[in-house]
C-alpha cells in the first residue's frame, strides 16, 4: 500500500499525560500500575493503571465547566486528542477541521456515568436520564466537540482491539481517496462494570502483571487514550508538516474460537500479523520489534507466543508487552501502544517488559534491556479483543 504518514500523536495513560512524560516513564522502567485512587471500587486489592488526574482536575486543565455529563472517557480522550492535533499543527474550531474525519474507539463509553446514577432513576431528573442513556457515539461526540466540527464522526467497538480497528478504518478511508487527513484512536476509562467483569472471569492479577512470565497470574486493568493524525503524502507536502512515522500495514482477522478466550494455536492473531506483513510487503525479518498484546493472562500469552512463533519462526525480533507499564487499557490499548511504538522508532529504544523474571514453557522470552542492537525501522503491534477480534499494525521509521 501507499505509505500513510503520522504527523501528530497524543497519549494519556497511567505513565503520563503526553508523550514527554510517557517516554520518561518508559525509559526509566517506571510503572503506572498502583493502588486504586479514583475508581470507587471495594476491590482495593486489585492494582490498576489509572490516569493520575481526577475528573475535576481534567476539566480544569481543559478549561471547561464542571459538568456531570462529561464521561471520564471523554475527558481523557480530549487531553490526548489535544496533544495530537497540536503536534500536527491542525487548527481547532476551523474550516480545516471540517475536512478531517474522526474515528474513535470505545467499549465502556459512558458506563462510569451510568454507574454513578444507576438505581437512582426513580427520583432523578431529566439530566440524569440523559446521562444514563449515553452510548458510544456520545463519547466520540463529546471528545470531538471540544475542538470543532469534524467532517464525520465514527465509533468502533471491538473490545480490546477497538483502537487498532479505528486506525484501520481511517487508513481505508484514505486509501479509498475519501480523506486526506484522519484522526484515529481510542479512549477508555476504568469502570466498576468491566473491573468487576474481568474479576468474575478471574483473570485479574492481584499484584503487578507479569506478561510472558511463567508465574503470570492475569492482567491489571488500566485507562487512557491515544490518537494519531494520519495524512496522505500530498497533504503532508501541501501543509509542510514533518511526519513522525509511517503506517506501513495492518491486518484484522477473527480467531472464531471463543467469546472470551484465545485459541491455543492463536489462529486469529497469526492471520492478523500475516495480513499486516503482506499489506506492508514485508517479511518477518524486516521487523525489529514486536509490541505484543501480552496481557499477562495465562491464556493470552501462551496463545500469542504460539502465533508469533508461527509467523516469525527463526527470525524472531525482540518482543515485549508494555501492559505492565500502563495496565490493559482495553479499547484504547491499540492506539496507546501505537504511540509507544512511535516513541520507540523516534528515540531508538526497546520498551522493556517490566516484572518479567522466569521464562514460560515454550513461551516468548521478552525484552528486558532497552538498548537496541539494530536500528529499529519497523515495528509490529498487536491488539486482541473478546470474541477473537484480532488486529495488528506495522509502524515504520520516517527518515527526514
Amino acid at each position: 500500500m501507499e505509505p500513510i504518514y503520522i504527523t501528530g500523536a497524543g497519549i494519556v495513560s497511567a505513565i503520563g499525560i503526553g508523550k514527554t512524560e510517557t517516554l520518561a516513564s518508559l525509559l526509566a522502567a517506571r510503572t503506572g500500575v498502583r493502588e486504586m485512587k479514583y475508581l470507587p471500587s471495594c476491590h482495593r486489592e486489585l492494582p490498576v493503571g489509572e490516569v493520575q488526574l481526577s475528573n475535576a482536575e481534567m476539566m480544569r486543565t481543559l478549561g471547561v465547566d464542571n459538568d456531570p455529563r462529561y464521561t471520564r472517557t471523554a475527558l481523557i480522550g480530549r487531553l490526548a486528542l489535544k496533544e495530537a492535533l497540536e503536534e500536527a499543527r491542525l487548527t481547532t474550531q476551523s474550516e480545516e477541521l471540517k475536512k478531517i474525519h474522526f474515528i474513535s474507539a470505545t467499549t465502556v463509553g459512558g458506563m462510569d456515568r451510568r454507574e454513578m446514577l444507576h438505581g437512582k432513576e426513580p427520583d432523578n431528573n431529566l439530566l440524569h436520564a440523559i446521562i444514563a442513556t449515553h452510548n458510544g457515539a456520545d463519547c466520540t461526540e463529546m471528545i470531538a466537540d471540544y475542538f470543532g466540527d469534524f467532517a464525520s464522526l465514527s465509533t468502533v467497538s471491538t473490545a480490546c482491539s477497538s483502537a487498532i480497528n479505528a486506525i484501520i478504518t481511517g487508513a481505508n478511508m484514505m486509501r479509498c481517496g475519501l480523506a486526506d487527513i484522519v484522526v484515529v484512536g481510542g479512549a477508555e476509562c476504568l469502570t466498576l462494570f468491566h473491573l468487576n467483569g474481568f474479576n468474575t472471569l478471574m483473570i485479574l492479577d492481584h499484584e503487578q502483571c507479569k506478561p510472558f512470565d511463567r508465574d503470570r497470574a492475569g492482567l491489571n486493568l488500566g485507562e487512557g487514550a491515544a490518537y494519531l493524525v494520519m495524512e496522505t503524502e500530498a497533504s503532508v507536502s501541501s501543509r509542510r508538516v514533518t511526519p513522525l512515522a509511517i503506517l506501513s500495514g495492518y491486518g484484522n482477522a477473527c480467531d472464531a474460537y471463543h467469546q472470551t478466550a484465545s485459541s491455543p494455536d492463536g489462529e486469529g492473531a497469526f492471520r492478523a500479523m500475516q495480513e499486516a506483513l503482506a499489506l506492508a510487503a514485508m517479511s518477518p525479518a524486516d521487523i525489529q520489534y514486536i509490541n505484543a498484546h501480552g496481557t499477562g493472562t495465562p491464556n493470552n500469552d501462551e496463545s500469542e507466543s504460539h502465533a508469533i512463533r508461527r509467523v516469525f519462526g527463526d527470525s524472531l525480533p525482540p518482543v515485549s508487552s508494555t501492559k505492565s507499564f500502563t495496565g490493559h487499557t482495553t479499547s484504547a490499548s491499540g492506539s496507546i501502544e501505537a504511540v509507544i511504538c512511535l516513541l520507540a522508532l523516534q528515540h531508538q529504544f526497546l520498551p522493556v517488559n517490566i516484572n518479567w523474571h522466569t521464562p514460560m514453557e515454550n513461551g516468548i522470552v521478552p525484552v528486558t534491556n532497552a538498548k537496541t542492537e539494530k536500528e529499529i525501522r519497523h515495528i509490529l503491534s498487536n491488539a486482541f479483543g473478546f470474541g477473537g477480534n484480532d488486529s495488528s499494525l506495522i509502524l515504520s521509521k520516517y527518515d527526514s
Partner: protein
Amino acid sequence: MEKKRLYIQAAEQVSIQQPLSEQWMEDPVCYQDTFVRAINPSFRDYIPANEVRRMGNIMKRALVTGLKVLNDTGIAHPDAIITGTGMGCMDYTVRFLDTLVENGEQTLSPTYFMQSTHNTVSSALAIYTKTHGYNVTYSHGGLSFEQALFDAWMQMQLGTISTALVGGHDEMVESHFELLQKTGYIGVEGMVPCGEVAMSMLLNSDNSQDCLCELAGISICHKPTMDGLKRQVERLVHEAGMTMGDVSAVMTGVNGKAANDDYYMSVADTLFPNVPLLRYKHIFGENYTVSALGMYAAAHCLKRNAVPPFMYDTSRSLSCDTLRSILILSHTEGKEYALMLLKRP
C-alpha cells in the same frame, strides 16, 4: 478510482413484524403500544437448543438472520462480518449493571459480562460459522448500521473483500426504554413504537448470482449545511451513473416526532420536492439501527418492483410510476446524516 458495483444478494430480519419473512409487505402487524418486543422465530430450527439457552435475544436473532442469509446464498464463509449496533447486548449489560449496583461488587457471576461487549454479535457469527476474515463492530448511535455498511463498501472498493455479511442489531429492555422515554428520544405522543432490530444481509461484488438490488453508494457526513448535503447527494447519484431524475423515491426515517421529522422534511422539500417519499418506521418501530430494516425493506421493494401502498408518506400525493432506485436518508438529531442509494441492477 473506478467504482465497483456491489449487490445485496439476500437480506433477512427479525423485528416487530413476522420474522424471517416478507409477510409485512402484504399484511403488516400494527401496534398501539409505545414499546414492542420483536417477534422471535423458532431459534431451535437454526441453533442447537443447548446453545439457545445460553444466548441473549440480540445474539440469537443476529445468528438466525445471519445464518439464514449465508445458507440462502450458499456462502459459508464471507470475507468479512461487519456489524452495527447502537447499544450492543443491552439486556446482559443491564443485568450485570443491576446486580452490581443492587448487590454490590461481591456476588457477580461472569455469564452476563461475557456477552456484554458490543462486538459479541459479530464475533458470535464468526465463531458459529468458523469465519476467520475481517470482523468489526461499529457502535455509533443511530448511524451504527450505516458505518458498518460504509466499511464494507470501502473494502470492496479497495478489493480486499468481495463478500460481506453486514448487519444492524439492537434489542431493548424495559428499564432502558423508560429512560429513553424520559429523555424524549422515544415513546412520546404520536410517535411510532420503540421496536427491536435484527437485520443481516449479504453484500457481494459479484453479480453472477440472483440479487435483491444494487448498493449504488453510501455517504456519511457530520453537520452539513443544506448546500453541503445537496452536493453529497449529487455526487452520490453521479458516481452511481445516475441523474437526480433517476431517483424514484426517497425513504426517510420519519417517526411521528416533530423534532425528528422536521429535519427529514426540510431535506426532502429542498432537494427532492417532486419525488415520492417512503417511510418504514411506522412498520418497524424506532431503535438505533432500525435504518437497517429500512434498507432491507427498500431492497425487497426493488426486487419486487413494487412499493406496498402503506409505505408511501401521505404528506405527498405522489407514488412511483417506475421504481428504479431508492435513496435512504438517515440523520441523528439533525447533526449527522447518512445517505444510502439502492437501485435495480
